[in-house]
């Protein structure tokens, strides 16, 4: 202000006799009001004759100078000081070294400075773009038709503080543009939903003039109300808001439910609410008075502005992109904002992550799953051992299993596990499934053990795909990690560690076929790698391939520096389960504090279906390694197998708390619910797992069965066409 007065005052002193107003505003008005003829007049008066350099810079000297802008009315010679010259003269006399000089000075020849080559290489090492891209997309698209933004649990993206600040600031500013119809509450909720799901700290404050003002206000508020300046009140409000399962889109609904929640608190809560809003506003670093006014306006407008019912909005990419999101291992949750509690960067390299889940439940309702799987595995194992397939034997073996299954099924029906109608559905679904399996059988047999690479791999050509893969794996981005690791083993086919990690990533992603294929490659390269051997043992146990499992577990023991002495030096021609179990019991006695031995024992007891012993072993191992999420999953799977599905869910929950992207645990959770007859629940978990990894074929089959059992035949088509968007909408978790 003072500055302005000062300058205009100075100008007034200097310009005596000028016909025009002498203050800056007048000068401008003059310039603007003046007719073109007047301008011409003044043009002639001007003594300056500064010419515009036709080419001011050597570095940009390639274009031909144009005398005039085509199509414009500016064909007359350019006179930079054409208007406002009275003022300018006065201004100059008042301040010789003022702004006008600088502005004119630029006309004078400049010392050329060398062109800068400052382009930073585009940052391709940033956070995984696909994950983020689709996530942000869903945020942006949530503005179409006023759909509340439902954030998903996201993996650790490795966003830098700068990235987070960008996302926070930019989304806040942009949200105010495209949520124009919505109330400030809604906008804040949307932005906060985005931020909290990206784990962006709302306390990162951007600098801004308005912030100071607010700080004062906050101080005042705290002083007058004796409140502790504790954590940002906005956070509390946001969290609270997030818990409201009401339609966030309608501010009046929101207010209603807010009142229900806070009842008689009336004014106080209202004020607090305002206060919290202010705090949220502050996050966009511009809680200026115009904003507060605008906020009020928005509220009023929100009620009067009509919703956009244009089908274009409803059909926008919001829905299409949900499926793409699945590639990034994120899903849309129900109206709940669940900030991901992500696993601490663990010592993944030393942990045994290979475990199993799915198929083991065959002892329960899902026997039929294993029916075709089991023979496959056997046949495969048989083929790889003997070099050819004995069809007769296979048929006989299959029949055997069918009988087992029929018995099992009959027993369960007898126990009333299935309702009458659901049994029918289930049976027909099963028939279809069998047909499918028969068709797939040839294919899967020939491809078994052969690692199948992804088509388009953005990590091919990456300077260090192994490191990238390890990093992605650590962050829980399994599908991305798989791609990076594939790039690594394509580059270095003899890298055992690359293959091993690839196998583990597949196992965690609930893809045992690929896991085994990768692990076998790892074992080829490094036949004595303990981790690989254990992983193979577990994978084959999962596939109920006892002989192979025993072989690998035996090798593990034999090559172990501590337990090598426990086993006879020469591997016998045929391993017996009992012998191997004895060896491991000996090993466990030797060092009762070695969690690995207990894990293997647990796996072995699974093979022999001694589930109580297996549970005991895993629980012992968990005391030694309480943060091993794969171990929790193993415990859960075992409990599920021993018909303790309720306990299993608790164990899976532990695994998911430690590692939210653990696809296998999500799928297992579904199985456990299905085992308890809670099909509707199980569907949600399958869909969740599939959203993270659509390639998990087992989970698709489980989903189909649960849909049949839940009498949701209307969704079977979506399941068969693998329409995840549709399924996710129908079965949000």
């Amino acid at each position, binding site marked *: 202000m003072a500055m302005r007065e000062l300058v205009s005052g100075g100008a007034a002193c200097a310009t005596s006799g000028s016909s025009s107003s002498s203050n800056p505003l007048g000068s*401008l008005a003059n310039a603007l009001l003046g007719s073109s003829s007047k301008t011409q007049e003044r043009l002639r008066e001007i003594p300056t004759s500064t010419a515009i350099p036709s080419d001011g810079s050597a570095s940009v000297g390639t274009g031909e100078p144009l005398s005039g802008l085509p199509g414009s009315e500016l064909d007359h010679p350019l006179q930079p000081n054409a208007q406002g010259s009275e003022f300018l003269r006065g201004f100059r006399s008042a301040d010789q070294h003022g702004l006008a000089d600088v502005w004119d000075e*630029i006309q004078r020849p*400049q010392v050329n400075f060398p062109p800068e080559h400052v382009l930073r290489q585009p940052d391709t090492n940033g956070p995984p773009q696909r994950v983020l891209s689709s996530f942000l997309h869903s945020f942006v698209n949530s503005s179409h038709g006023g759909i509340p933004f439902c954030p998903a649990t996201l993996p650790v993206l490795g*966003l830098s503080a700068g990235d987070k600040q960008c996302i926070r600031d930019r989304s806040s500013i942009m949200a105010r543009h495209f949520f124009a119809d919505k109330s400030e509450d809604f906008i804040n909720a949307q932005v906060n939903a985005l931020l909290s799901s990206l784990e962006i700290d709302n306390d990162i404050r951007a600098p801004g003039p308005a912030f100071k003002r607010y700080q004062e206000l906050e101080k005042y508020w705290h002083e007058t109300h004796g409140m502790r300046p504790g954590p940002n009140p906005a956070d509390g409000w946001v969290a609270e808001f997030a818990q409201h399962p009401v339609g966030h889109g309608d501010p009046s609904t929101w207010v209603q439910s807010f009142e229900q929640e806070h009842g008689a608190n009336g004014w106080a809560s209202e004020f607090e609410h305002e206060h919290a809003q202010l705090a949220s506003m502050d996050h966009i670093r*511009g809680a200026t008075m*115009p904003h507060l006014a605008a906020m009020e306006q*928005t509220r009023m407008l929100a009620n009067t502005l009509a919703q956009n019912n244009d089908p274009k909005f409803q059909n926008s990419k919001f829905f299409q992109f949900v499926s793409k999101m699945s590639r990034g291992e994120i899903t849309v949750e129900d109206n709940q904002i669940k900030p991901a509690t992500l696993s601490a960067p663990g010592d993944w390299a030393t942990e045994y992550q290979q475990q199993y889940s799915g198929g083991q439940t065959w002892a329960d309702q899902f026997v039929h799953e294993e029916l075709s799987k089991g023979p496959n595995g056997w046949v495969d194992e048989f083929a790889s051992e003997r070099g050819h397939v004995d069809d007769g034997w296979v048929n006989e073996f299959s029949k055997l299993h069918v009988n087992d299954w029929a018995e099992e099924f009959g027993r369960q029906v007898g126990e009333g596990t299935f309702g009458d109608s659901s049994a029918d559905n289930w049976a027909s679904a099963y028939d279809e499934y069998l047909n499918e399996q028969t068709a797939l059988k040839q294919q899967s047999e020939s491809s078994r053990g052969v690692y199948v690479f992804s088509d388009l791999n953005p990590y091919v050509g990456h300077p260090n795909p192994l490191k990238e893969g390890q990093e992605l794996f650590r962050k829980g981005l399994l599908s991305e990690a798989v791609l990076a690791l594939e790039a690594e083993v394509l580059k270095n086919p003899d890298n055992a560690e690359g293959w091993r990690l690839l196998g583990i990533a597949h196992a965690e992603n609930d893809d045992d076929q690929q896991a085994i294929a990768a692990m076998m490659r790892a074992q080829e390269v490094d036949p004595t790698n303990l981790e690989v051997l254990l992983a193979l043992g577990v994978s084959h146990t999962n596939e109920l391939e006892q002989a192979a499992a025993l072989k690998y577990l035996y090798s593990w023991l034999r090559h172990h520096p501590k337990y090598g002495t426990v086993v006879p030096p020469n591997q016998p021609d045929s391993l017996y389960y009992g012998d191997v179990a004895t060896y491991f019991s000996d090993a466990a006695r030797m060092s009762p504090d070695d969690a690995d031995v207990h894990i293997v024992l647990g796996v072995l007891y699974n093979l022999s279906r001694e589930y109580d012993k297996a549970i005991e072993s895993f629980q012992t191992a968990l005391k030694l390694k309480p943060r091993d999420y794969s171990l929790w999953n193993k415990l859960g799977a075992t409990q599920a197998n021993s018909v303790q599905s309720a306990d299993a869910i608790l164990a899976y929950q532990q695994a998911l708390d430690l590692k939210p992207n653990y696809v296998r645990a999500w799928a297992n959770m579904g199985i456990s619910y299905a085992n308890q007859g809670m099909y509707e629940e199980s569907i949600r978990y399958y869909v969740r797992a599939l959203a993270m990894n659509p390639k998990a074929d087992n989970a698709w089959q489980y989903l189909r069965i649960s849909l049949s059992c839940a009498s949701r035949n209307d969704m079977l088509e979506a399941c068969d066409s693998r329409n995840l968007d549709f399924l996710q909408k129908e079965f949000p978790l």
Partner: protein
Amino acid sequence: MPVFKVPFNGYSVKFSPFYESQLAVATAQNFGILGNGRLHVLQLSPSPANPGQPISEISSFDTADGVYDCCWSESHDSLIVAAVADGSVKLYDLSLPPTANPIRSLQEHTREVHSVDYNVVRKDSFLSSSWDDTVKLWTVDRPSSVRTFKEHAYCVYSTAWNPRHADVFASASGDCTARIWDVREPASTMILPAHEFEILSCDWNKYDDCVIATASVDKSIKVWDVRSFRVPVAVLNGHGYAVRKVKFSPHRGSVIASCSYDMTVCLWDYMVEDALIGRYDHHTEFTVGVDMSVLVEGLLASTGWDELVYVWQHGMDPRAP
């Protein structure tokens, strides 16, 4: 009419003032929220390599952050100024190989640069406006800004040079004001509380240098006469969401083009009663860039977050093959 697919979300499109077939497109990954950016220079003719495609790419330049806006130099046919979200203003010379570009990177703004505008009268200077609440004045041959204009209380979304007066420009800000500035003066010369909501764009009438249009989050476009700015000359209602850009026709004094978060491009004649004279809903996501060719009357270009660039003649269907 021609359509071109860009890999990122379109942010801005500008016709070259020198060649009727060239246009520059500013794009940003992930809607400009996070990621890289790319500046495309397109040619309205098929390339020999790909004769089926009506628009071909002459050149493209990658940036480490989104490109929010671009403008062509009025003095050199190969010079483009880009507004980058990392706070830099970058100059690109098409006649130089990509490795020699950008020829300048001007790093002064502390936050995202949201617009750049080249002075059409004094063809040596340009303005940048930023979310750091400031506007900066630059010349092509200086390594630092000539002046910084700091008065707005919130993001400055766009600036527009007066088409006739070399020193006068307007700025549009999220503080709900538009301001008129004379670069020789220390402070803004006029504050226009034009809307009750954030103002995202402004432009001067090319035939009446006292008339300015503002576009706002309140979905409206208002036309003002700066000599009597108490009431707007016209209020153009019809967009369903915030109006992102507004642009006066270089050929008809009363014609305005606008684009909006309602995914449409609209043409208006603010002098007539039924002001809305054309609506194009060819984009399937937010439409955030629109331009009218100076060299070809009625030729329009638009871009949006659907990653498409359309070029079409007014009255035609942009999607028509």
